[in-house]
């Protein structure tokens, strides 16, 4: 409960005051009735904790029904949490004294494994302060008079904070005038750590004050603090300003630079991985060489006939003045020519980090060589306008909008054939294209009734996995009932998530996903499941 601390005594924080009042009331014997739970007595109702009236723009019914938590309830939860943490430490065989929150999280994920997609729906065990939202205690006494003198401003914490800060500004200016009068004032600029820290953002300030602020309020407050920090301050004022600053991490520290490895000949080398759109690359940079770059066993001049791609390969070396000093061997798959070049560039830059100084790593980072490019192809949207005017267009998303869910249904097993990669029009591959040529003969031909069932060797397992696409309004079949080549992209995503290697489409509009050799069951998607509700 980060309440503003009492420094000048100008503003008395309501919480401490309330605590004082509570203890006072307890002595009077009035609190006991309220502490035992929700009371219906009129006098006790005033002492019951209420949450502050939140200004909501949307009707969130769940939020309006928020429960109010008493101080004792929270205290009890904290005690239970601490005891539970110790029990958990004993269960995991660790020392209860040094059991940190990260250990708790790890233990919970171990004991309660959950496959839920939504991370916030998984079981957690955190300090009650983080779980129960901060609420404001009741701000007026039995007689209905508010405790704080700024209560009727509506934002008492904010205004009391402003009042306090302004008091300090006046104080500092007075001191400055006195120093000037004495002639002791020197115009030296203060060396503050302006870069290593930043002001609180609006959300953080709101959380600190447990009050809603407007943008103007926040800007006003920051301006006042900047004015205060520009004046010569003493220790108390520095500490006051320091409460509203947060440290900013130096970005380069987040990189982990791998140490150099050495092969049998004693040559130093380093590996790096890179990604760009759907291309994945892995590069091995050797310490000594003549600037040769080999990609998938092919020289870079042959692999990238376009100048722009070769310039991208050259970029990290030229930037570090190491052209012609390193040999590179890399493998790349996926994507197009430009994204493959970008992926290799990133992989090479990461591998080069092991050969250079920390300053140079920071330069590379500032030149944009060490960041994964997050730009991906935007999902295509179609708008279908309703027949009558006045309605919003319905939007249909292709590709990235779908969320695939796997359901198990019990179906009697039928004949099973082993599935292998098929080569057919409509067959999708994103693995290394150079291994198998398309058009190689298959062990069986897919027919209209061809189904791949998982675990059909074992007759006890007779489930068929069916895939539904939900949410996002995905329509991949459209009106024609056939999968078009532009609609294959969502299949790519689905197959990736199902860890299937290839898929193929049979005549009836059924899609079969084939796993990697020995990886798992293969899956079938039928046409009706692919057609989904459209996004409204």
């Amino acid at each position, binding site marked *: 409960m980060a309440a503003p601390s009492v420094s000048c005594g100008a503003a008395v924080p309501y919480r401490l005051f309330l605590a004082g009042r509570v203890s006072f009331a307890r002595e009077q014997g009035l609190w006991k009735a309220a502490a035992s739970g929700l009371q219906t007595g009129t006098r006790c109702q005033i002492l019951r904790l209420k949450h502050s009236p939140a200004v909501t723009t949307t009707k969130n019914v769940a939020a309006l029904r928020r429960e109010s938590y008493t101080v004792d309830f929270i205290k009890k939860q904290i005690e239970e949490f601490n005891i539970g943490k110790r029990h958990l430490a004993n269960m995991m065989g660790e020392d209860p004294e040094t059991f940190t929150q990260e250990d708790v999280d790890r233990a919970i994920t171990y004991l309660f494994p959950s496959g839920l997609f939504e991370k916030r729906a998984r079981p957690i065990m955190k300090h009650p302060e983080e779980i129960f939202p901060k609420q404001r205690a009741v701000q007026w006494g039995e007689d209905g008079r508010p405790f704080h003198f700024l209560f009727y401003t509506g934002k008492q914490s904010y205004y009391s904070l402003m009042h306090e800060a302004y008091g300090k500004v006046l104080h500092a200016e007075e001191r400055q005038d006195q120093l000037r009068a004495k002639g002791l004032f020197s115009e030296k600029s203060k060396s503050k750590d*302006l*870069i290593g820290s930043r002001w609180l953002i609006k959300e953080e300030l709101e959380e600190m004050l447990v009050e809603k602020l407007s943008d103007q309020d926040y800007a006003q407050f920051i301006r006042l603090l900047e004015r205060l920090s520009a004046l010569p301050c003493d220790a108390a004022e520095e500490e006051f300003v320091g409460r509203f600053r947060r440290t900013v991490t130096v970005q380069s520290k987040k990189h982990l630079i791998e140490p150099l490895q050495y092969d049998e000949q004693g040559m130093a080398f380093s590996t790096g991985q890179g990604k760009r759109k759907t291309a994945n690359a892995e590069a091995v940079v050797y310490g000594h060489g003549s600037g040769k770059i080999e990609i998938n066993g092919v020289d870079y001049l042959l692999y990238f006939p376009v100048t*722009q791609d070769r310039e991208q390969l050259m970029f990290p070396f030229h930037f570090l003045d190491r052209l012609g000093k390193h040999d590179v061997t890399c493998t790349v798959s996926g994507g197009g020519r430009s994204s493959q070049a970008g992926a290799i560039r990133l992989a090479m830059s990461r591998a080069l980090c092991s050969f250079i100084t920390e300053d140079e790593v920071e330069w590379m980072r500032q030149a*944009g060589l060490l960041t994964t490019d997050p730009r991906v192809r935007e999902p295509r949207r179609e708008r279908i306008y309703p027949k009558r005017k006045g309605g919003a267009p319905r939007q249909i998303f292709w590709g990235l909008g779908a969320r695939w869910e796997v359901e198990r249904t019990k179906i009697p097993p039928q004949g099973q054939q082993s599935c292998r990669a098929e080569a057919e029009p409509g067959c999708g591959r994103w693995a290394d294209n150079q291994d198998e040529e398309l058009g190689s003969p298959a062990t069986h031909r897919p027919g209209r009734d061809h189904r791949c069932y998982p675990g059909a060797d074992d007759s006890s397992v007779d489930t068929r996995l069916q895939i539904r696409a939900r949410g*996002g309004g995905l329509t991949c079949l459209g009106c024609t009932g056939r999968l078009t080549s532009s609609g294959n992209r969502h299949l790519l995503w689905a197959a990736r998530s199902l860890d299937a290697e290839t898929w193929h489409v049979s005549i009836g509009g059924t899609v079969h996903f084939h796993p990697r050799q020995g990886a798992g069951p293969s899956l079938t998607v039928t046409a009706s499941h692919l057609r989904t509700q459209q996004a409204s």
Partner: protein
Amino acid sequence: MRGDGWGEGSPNRAFIMFRLLQGKVLFFTSLSLDYFHLKHSACAKQSLLLEYTVKILKLCGLTQVRWSRYGPEYQDPQIDKEYYRKPLAQLTEEETYERELRKTQVIKAAPATKTSSVFEDPVISKFTNMMMKGGNKILARSLMTQTLEAVKRKQFEKYHAASAEEQATVERNPYTIFHQALKNCEPVIGLVPILKGGHFYQVPVPLAERRRRFLAMKWMITECREKKPRRMLMPEKLSQELLEAFCNRGPVIKRKHDMHKMAEANRALAHYRWW
């Protein structure tokens, strides 16, 4: 989905730019994708964010123009090698402050068209992009190199044909010719249609630097595309136009002068401008 760029270091936010319907004011706002976690998976966040944004913004009268996968805190990369090689002792106070500040900022990835190569020219890159049709950068870039080669050849022919005194005046570097030609084509003042009293008036308006550069390039390209003889190829025509513009003559220069004359003629309407 997992493999599509939501890896470590990727920003989990979309950064959206708007503009008012009538004016050209740009607003920036960022909406966090975390708000949309409840119903949709990671891959749907992107598209749904757009949906929600459109709905919210329609209420404000703003139309969404562009959005970016980078959040607003991401800074543009500094690719110039010499910037980093400068010794610390020679830096001014502002530069040291800036250096320290950049250490705490997250930087975007360098685009595929930018390198630290000495042969790279931002003006040439911009011109190439403007010449490009249908995303065919390979063709646009080859046309550009052929144009520069043609300019160089013509100038060398002229050089060898000229006498000793004139040889000093012949400019043979195609890059200087290109830059000078475009600079000669830049208009100083432009015309903007302003609605007043139900009529659109062409009001003279000072142009920003980038607008001038854009107009010069645009005029050059349109001129070459439209007024080209049928069998002539683009590099030949473009080199011809560039050389003429370098000498301050030719159709593009004439267009610039026409624009200036119209602005001069509509001088009386200048007070319609309010910015």
